[in-house]
């Protein structure tokens, strides 16, 4: 599993102002801490960056690469800012992200700068409703990228994870299903997810259970990478293959096994309950671990 740290984000209370004031210290400290926590890439989310986004992205790429040799995932919806970042990035950057709406102007950037890219599966009519709609969007993006000479190996599809808290829009299962069919429809393509979105809206101290469990579930179907909270050490351990018994338990529950509750530790029980909430077998409530 390739991990991309999500923490350098304009929404953060320390990073937002630091970006605005061009204050390198908090940004570099966080970048170093993320790298030490063991992630492989660092996501730089500067938001839409409508004003002077190019100058901001150039500055933040240089600032972060000044203190770490990790590759960066450049996360903005502003193509001018994206290009400015790609220009100064050492080695290969990851473009986060390109969707159908802006592929004509952004796919050439991936080619020109030999960057990897996240293909965001956001449809022309908004959020895809099932795995099949995700597949259709993926194929269209892939063909267009291939035409420009971008190989499948450089495309990381993001099926768009939604919060489990909201029953109306819960897409946890379609994302799993998409992951299971990805290699058939787009051989060689990679995958990634904005993992923490699955727990958006849940009580902060319980979010890691949803994040870790869902990551294990996606890994079962070959998830290649995830954008994650770099400071959840247990999640990093799971991704590194250091919790095989936990992974095994989650997979067994996904396969329909109903482990005897008395045979499970308190910790294991939490993972079992979380699988059931994510699949929709149990309806989510903030106290899902208690009932």
């Amino acid at each position, binding site marked *: 599993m390739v991990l991309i740290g999500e923490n350098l984000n304009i929404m953060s209370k320390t990073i937002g102002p630091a970006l605005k004031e061009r204050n390198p210290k908090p940004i570099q400290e966080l970048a170093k801490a993320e790298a030490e926590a063991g992630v492989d890439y660092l996501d730089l989310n500067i938001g839409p960056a409508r004003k002077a986004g190019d100058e901001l992205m150039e500055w933040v790429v240089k600032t972060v690469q000044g203190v770490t040799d990790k590759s960066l995932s450049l996360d903005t919806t502003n193509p001018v800012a994206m290009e400015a970042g790609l220009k100064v990035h050492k080695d290969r950057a990851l473009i986060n992200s390109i969707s159908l709406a802006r592929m004509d102007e952004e796919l050439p950037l991936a080619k020109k700068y030999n960057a990897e890219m996240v293909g965001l599966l956001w449809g022309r009519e908004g959020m895809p409703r099932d795995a099949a709609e995700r597949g259709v969007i993926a194929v269209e993006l892939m063909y267009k990228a291939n035409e420009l000479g971008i190989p499948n190996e450089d495309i990381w599809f993001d099926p768009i994870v939604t919060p489990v808290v909201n*029953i109306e829009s819960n897409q946890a299962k379609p994302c799993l299903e998409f992951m299971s069919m990805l290699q058939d429809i787009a051989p060689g393509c990679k995958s990634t997810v904005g993992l923490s979105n699955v727990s958006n809206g849940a009580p902060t101290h319980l979010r890691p259970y949803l994040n870790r469990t869902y990551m294990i579930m996606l890994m079962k179907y070959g998830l290649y990478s995830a954008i994650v909270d770099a400071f959840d050490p247990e999640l990093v351990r799971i991704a590194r293959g250091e919790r095989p018994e936990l992974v095994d338990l989650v997979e067994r529950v996904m396969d329909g096994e109903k482990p005897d509750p008395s045979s499970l530790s308190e910790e294991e029980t939490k993972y079992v309950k979380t699988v059931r909430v994510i699949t929709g*077998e*149990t*309806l*989510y*409530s*903030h*106290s899902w671990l*208690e*009932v």
Partner: protein
Amino acid sequence: MVFEIPKTAYSGKIREVKLGSGEKAVTVGGETCYPLYLFEGEMPNLPKIAMEVWDMPPQDWAEAALEPFAGVTDDPVAWAKKCVEDYGAEMICLQLVSTDPNGLDRGADEAAEVVKKVADAIDVPLIVWGTANHEKDTEVLRKVCEVCRGKNLIIGPVEEGDHKRIGAAAIGYHHTVIASTPIDINLAKQLNILLGNLGVPDELIITDPTTSCIGYGIEYCYSVMERMRMAGLTQQDEKLQFPLICNISKEAWKTKEVHIPMEEDPKLGDAKKRGILLEAMSAMVLILAGGDVMIMRHPEAIKLVREVIAELTAS
């Protein structure tokens, strides 16, 4: 091959909750199938209607709604008795409108005294509905619980923000609580869990999913209630197996469509008929979604709903 009609696989049952006490106590819930799916399961207790009484004379009611209660709207006791004796109400819902901090702001002691008088004057179950202001409801409903001990009232709305203090009083004086959440199934489940953690017994809980009327988002209420029934009946979700109560009349009768006189907009038709139909049809939609108790206002709207229920359940 013989065609077989597909049948829903039910694994759960809605809890039976007894409201009130004595001979006129009313039991609701107990369904083992989707609402009125009598070809798939049982509905031992048909939906019940509680008639609405205000604790102060209404200022903004449409003429059509006031007409059946002429002469009693300034006396909640007389009003409640009229509903029971003249209109055959199976339950009364006393709306404590006078306690609204943004209105008359009547104090807890005085409000509780009125509740006690009404409770003493009728033998059918009494629902007591506050103003959804957490601080004021805590004060008022706690007092009501105390003053009316032994009456087995049904009190609400009890929301996440005031569930501990009102819930504790309900446990102490043995009243049923109305667990109320803003049209959200996850929050509804959560509040039921919290009430359980507090020690409120399951047989003293009834769920208010929050309702609105036709033309004002009733589809959304319908979906949430329908989903609650699916979770309770087919997914064994014990925290979503409570009967549902819908405070619908005030929603229907506050719409602008009910208040426009026919002279102003002739194509809307007769104003009286319009209000009655809006209330009756909204209630019927909510019953089809799984509502067990409807709080209603107009005797003719109630009559219509009772007729439809009778027709849909005739064997």
